[in-house]
């Protein structure tokens, strides 16, 4: 009882919010959270992990007030299941898919290397689990290459692992996130083809305030902050659209 009262009386000015963040958004979110803490006096505490695991944890009472998902389906599903604060779901970033190789000049500017097939393994994120994997599979389908190339797939469970396969050279090339190969606003190493957005459905990453964060001032402030100019500039600098 006393605890409840104390929580209720705490000034809304400085609140803490526990945020579950999709692993692919780790670095941008750390930068945003630092600015957010400085600018608002609130505190964003971040936990990083896979979207599927966070879903299971949230359904089983995990102490998160806000969820930044790697897709748009999982937040929508939580909303349908009544696990979120009504009307708080929004898209905070849109991912860009690239075909990337760690070797220079391996991938040409129009991705024609795919049709030539002069490679052994093509790394792709699991299309069932990872939004970038689904976008990659849609892209290959649009190019008419899905059936021809699927025997050469090596699948990462998520986009981070897929990147690792390509970076270590175990796969000559692979579909990864632009945010993984961007360095200081440009492609850092190797060679890449930025896949035109017209070849796949948008890779939307949605955020939502969870039911337990309904009255949390920091959660509301963070949602606002993510839509603001400062956060958007950070998000863009890491290779996401908005």
């Amino acid at each position, binding site marked *: 009882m006393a605890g409840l009262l104390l929580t209720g009386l705490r000034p809304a000015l400085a609140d803490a919010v526990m945020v579950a963040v999709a692993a692919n958004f780790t670095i941008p979110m750390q930068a945003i959270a630092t600015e957010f803490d400085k600018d608002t006096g609130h505190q964003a505490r971040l936990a990083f992990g896979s979207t*599927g695991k966070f879903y299971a944890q949230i359904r089983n009472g995990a102490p998160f007030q806000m969820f930044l998902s790697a897709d748009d389906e999982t937040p929508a599903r939580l909303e349908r299941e009544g696990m979120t604060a009504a009307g708080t779901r929004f898209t905070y970033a849109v991912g860009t898919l690239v075909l990337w190789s760690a070797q220079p000049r391996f991938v040409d500017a129009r991705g024609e290397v795919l049709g030539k097939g002069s490679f052994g393994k093509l790394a792709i994120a699991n299309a069932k689990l990872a939004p970038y994997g689904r976008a990659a599979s849609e892209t290959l389908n649009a190019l008419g290459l899905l059936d021809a190339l699927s025997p050469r797939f090596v699948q990462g469970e998520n986009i981070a692992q897929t990147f690792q396969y390509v970076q270590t050279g175990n796969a000559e090339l692979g579909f990864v996130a632009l945010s993984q190969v961007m360095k200081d606003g440009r492609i850092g190493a190797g060679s890449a083809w930025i896949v035109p957005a017209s070849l796949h459905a948008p890779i939307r990453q949605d955020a939502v305030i969870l039911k337990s964060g309904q009255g949390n001032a920091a959660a509301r402030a963070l949602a606002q902050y993510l839509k603001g100019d400062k956060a958007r500039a950070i998000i863009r600098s890491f290779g996401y659209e908005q």
Partner: protein
Amino acid sequence: MGFSDADLAAIWLTLRLATVTTVLLLVIGTPLAWWLARTRSWLKGPVGAVVALPLVLPPTVLGFYLLVTLGPNGPVGQLTQALGLGLLPFTFWGLVVASVLYSMPFVVQPLQNAFEAIGERMLEAAATLRAAPLDAFFSVAVPLARPGFVTASILGFAHTVGEFGVVLMIGGNIPNETRVVSVQIYDHVEALEYTQAHSLSAAMLVFSFLVLLALYTFNPTRRKA
């Protein structure tokens, strides 16, 4: 409780992987355990420590180093390519190599304990009866160490079945090649297919329990007199 074709393929692959791994481990692990049990060399400590490393290392560490070492720029990767074997990651035999390393202590340590328990006198007796060392090994040491072999085989097999982190790192999730049961369960959970995840997980749980039950029922540790 039904299994899809993909689930059955994963189960079959896992059993094949565990069988091949266990056989190889018995072949490699027996002389190694024998040496560890009898040597007075200063190398005993370092070799024993290396064998035991997988017990304490997170599987991701082992998997990550294997990915780098077996990859095209790694020393082992360059060797396998030079020998015309291609690259090991993302192949069944890559998983075999990883599993042999990963399950090594579960086979070597029970064997080593069993060999150490035999003691010098039994082997000296065999020598006085003019048994050559190799003969003494097969006709005296191996039968006496039988419980150790049973434990080593069961633990090596079961531990390979339960392997996850290493496979995840170097497997690439290829059906019939590297998608083992634990990875299949992980996929089901991540895709929120909880019913399928339950079936496979329950099967894994029952299997593991039965294996350990068999181990403790039929192969009790020797009681002190």
